[in-house]
């Protein structure tokens, strides 16, 4: 089955070009040029992934991102023209899983899309623990005691990556490779923002983390 991808971009030429590239790689693109209608189109088309431009008429891409995230865990990849730290971080904080800065190469875009669509690896029944948090890998469930914690697939992957090797300290680069699927050096802010978001969901006190620990100057590791 072809994966359906919703492309939210007001620039028709770019949207068409992205469509050409996606179709060429075996995806099924759906388009929406207006931020205000993005949510309706999203509900109607039920895409497997959303490509979202940050600057949109009608509604800000960041707001669209927040609304989509509020009702679905579908992967969101932002297309950003702004390389400013604050914009990227704001986009990631509003719920996007990844971003592709303009101008991008077709291969780069496809790689990012594929990485996010990557079917969950053959998930054997497996239960992991970090600190007082229990992870049911196959069931995609995270819980503390009897409380379920709801995570997006990306946050879940991040947590599982850390939990599988509790003895290892993960550099941001390593996490980018394992969780996001980057082959080359990329922006480590992705990791920072998502670790923060993950912490805000699973830590009792995000200021004093017990589940995802920072190793100064190196990266992150699972708490014991």
């Amino acid at each position, binding site marked *: 089955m072809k994966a359906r991808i919703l492309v939210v971009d007001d620039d028709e030429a770019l949207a068409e070009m992205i469509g050409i590239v996606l179709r060429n790689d075996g995806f099924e693109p759906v388009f929406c040029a207006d931020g205000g209608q993005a949510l309706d189109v999203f509900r109607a088309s039920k895409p497997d992934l959303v490509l979202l431009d940050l600057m949109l008429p009608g509604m800000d891409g960041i707001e669209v991102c927040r609304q989509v995230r509020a009702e679905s865990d579908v992967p969101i990849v932002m297309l950003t023209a702004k*390389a400013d730290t604050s914009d990227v971080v704001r986009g990631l904080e509003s719920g996007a899983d990844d971003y592709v800065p303009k*101008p991008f190469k077709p291969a780069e875009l496809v790689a990012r899309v594929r990485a996010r669509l990557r079917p969950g690896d053959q998930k054997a029944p497996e239960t992991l623990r970090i600190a007082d948090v229990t992870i049911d890998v196959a069931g995609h469930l995270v819980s503390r005691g009897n409380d379920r914690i709801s995570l997006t697939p990306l946050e879940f992957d991040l947590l599982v990556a850390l939990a599988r090797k509790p003895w290892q300290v993960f550099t941001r680069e390593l996490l980018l490779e394992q969780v996001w699927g980057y082959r080359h050096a990329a922006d480590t802010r992705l990791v920072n923002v998502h670790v923060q978001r993950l912490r805000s969901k699973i830590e009792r006190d995000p200021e004093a983390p017990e589940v995802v620990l920072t190793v100064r100057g190196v990266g992150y590791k699972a708490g014991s």
Partner: protein
Amino acid sequence: MQRLLPGIRYLLRAVQRKWRRSLQFRTVLTTLMLAIGSFAVVGAYLSNQIANNLFQERLAQAESETRYNVKQVQDTFDGAQVTDQSSVITLVYDTLNAVEGRGSVIQRRYVFEAMPEQTKPRNRWVESRASDQLTIGVIPPDLRKAVQNSGKDQYWASTQFPVGTEDRPGIAVGNKVTFNGTVYELYLIYDLNTAQKTLDEIQNVLLAGGAVLVLMIGGVAWYVTRNVVSPVSHAAVVSEKLAAGQLQERMVVKGEDEVARLGASFNHMAASLQEQITQLATLSQMQQRFVSDVSHELRTPLTTVRMAAEVLYDAREDFDPINKRSAELLYNQVERFQSLLADLLEISRFDAGAATLDAEPTDIVQLVAHVIEGVAPVAAEYGSAVTLNAPAGSVIVDMDDRRIDRILRNLILNALEHGEGRPVNISVAASDTAVAVAVRDHGIGMTPAEAARVFDRFWRADPARARTTGGSGLGLSIAAEDTKLHDGWLQAWGSKGHGSNFRLTLPLRRHEPITRSPLHLEPVNVGLPETGRQRTMVLLDPQRSAETPAATPGAGTPGAAARGTMADGFRGFSGDFSGDGGGAVGGATPDGGSAGPRETGMEGRA
């Protein structure tokens, strides 16, 4: 006393400090001192004048009274018709007692004494007589001498005489009287006690008045200086706040006097400062906005063009030769256009002050290794060996790794571009406060004048030189800006024909100024890594990696073990050598090391 001394010393120090720091304290204290001084002078003069007047008046009175009384006594003595001893004694005593005056208050006292050294007549029954408690001893000898040696003149002198238990000041006036052929000295003593009491009272009044006046003057001085000083210290407080960035801070202005004018003009200055700063901030914001908008507006079509170009490029094999070449040109130039645009936008972001530092503690040694890994393909293309000489452990620096990565990538690519295929040596060294990374090439080099200009925008040492890597000419300018953002140093050294050295120095912790760099800018030891416990990585080109161990005859030496290739990643660079092995590590010596990789490059191309 011993316990008191520190207290006094502390007090003195406190006063000294207050004297230095408070204009008001200084003014009030000075005023008080001056007032006390002038009152002392005026008071002394006044009391002296009054005392003098009182005395002169009393003296004049004493002299005239004495003259009268002496005459009375003499007249009484002259007219006496007594001859027997008892009546003589009675007469003399009565006469003398009459001198003391009538009433309860003794008006004057007397001392009556026969002159010494005279022939003693037979009927001299009276030798001396004096008022209560008095003897001839109270009369100053000088006065007695004057009276004795004169004819019938009257003399006076100040003296003191006992009354009850106290000594009282007085004036003694003396003359001679004659009785029955005997010459007597008669001294009348006048009490100055009343005058002294009056004087004391006047002095007390003067003192009290002076003290009150001095206090009042002090108070006035305090009030006046407070009125002047307090707006000044208020202004100081307000300007401190202004300097700290609280631009809305203003002085309180009351009235229309000079102080109010000071306040008003101060506020005026603050307002115009605030306006200009706000204007600058707005301008910078607009500039930032503009850059951001341009960035977005340009990038979206550029993305489309780039994607289209790449689709065409990927399909170029199906085109005829003209279209194929066109597709290639389009693809390459779009790439170049994009990197130029990115650099331009980056530099304008710096100009707008929109660049922010996203610093966190990161291991710079690992970052350097990472960058070297990233430039491996380029190094292979140029045929240059890249060596790394770094401390064995990690060096944690507060830095924005994205920016430092960009600086180092730029420096290394630059070194490769100008290195003419000779080795590029990268050194890392750290001190307690700073870390330095030096990138040394042995290529064409540059003159000191050129070295001074390398960080200028769009500057090129040789305009005619081909732009092989297609740089924008902004790379080193951006690197310099990135460094400045870290409060670091970025410096260049060059020598024509001997290559160049770029040194980046960063403070280990933010806001700690660098005092000296741990590495020399001018290479002392050209191309040789320092000996000691160091690890060294030598970068070879990827294609050769598989054959390297076999192709290197000295595979067993520590040098060879250090030869990590890019395919090995960091594994090749974990060597921790003892001193003797480290110095000779491959790639370092100009003949052994540089020859190998260069050869490799040739093979790769062949």
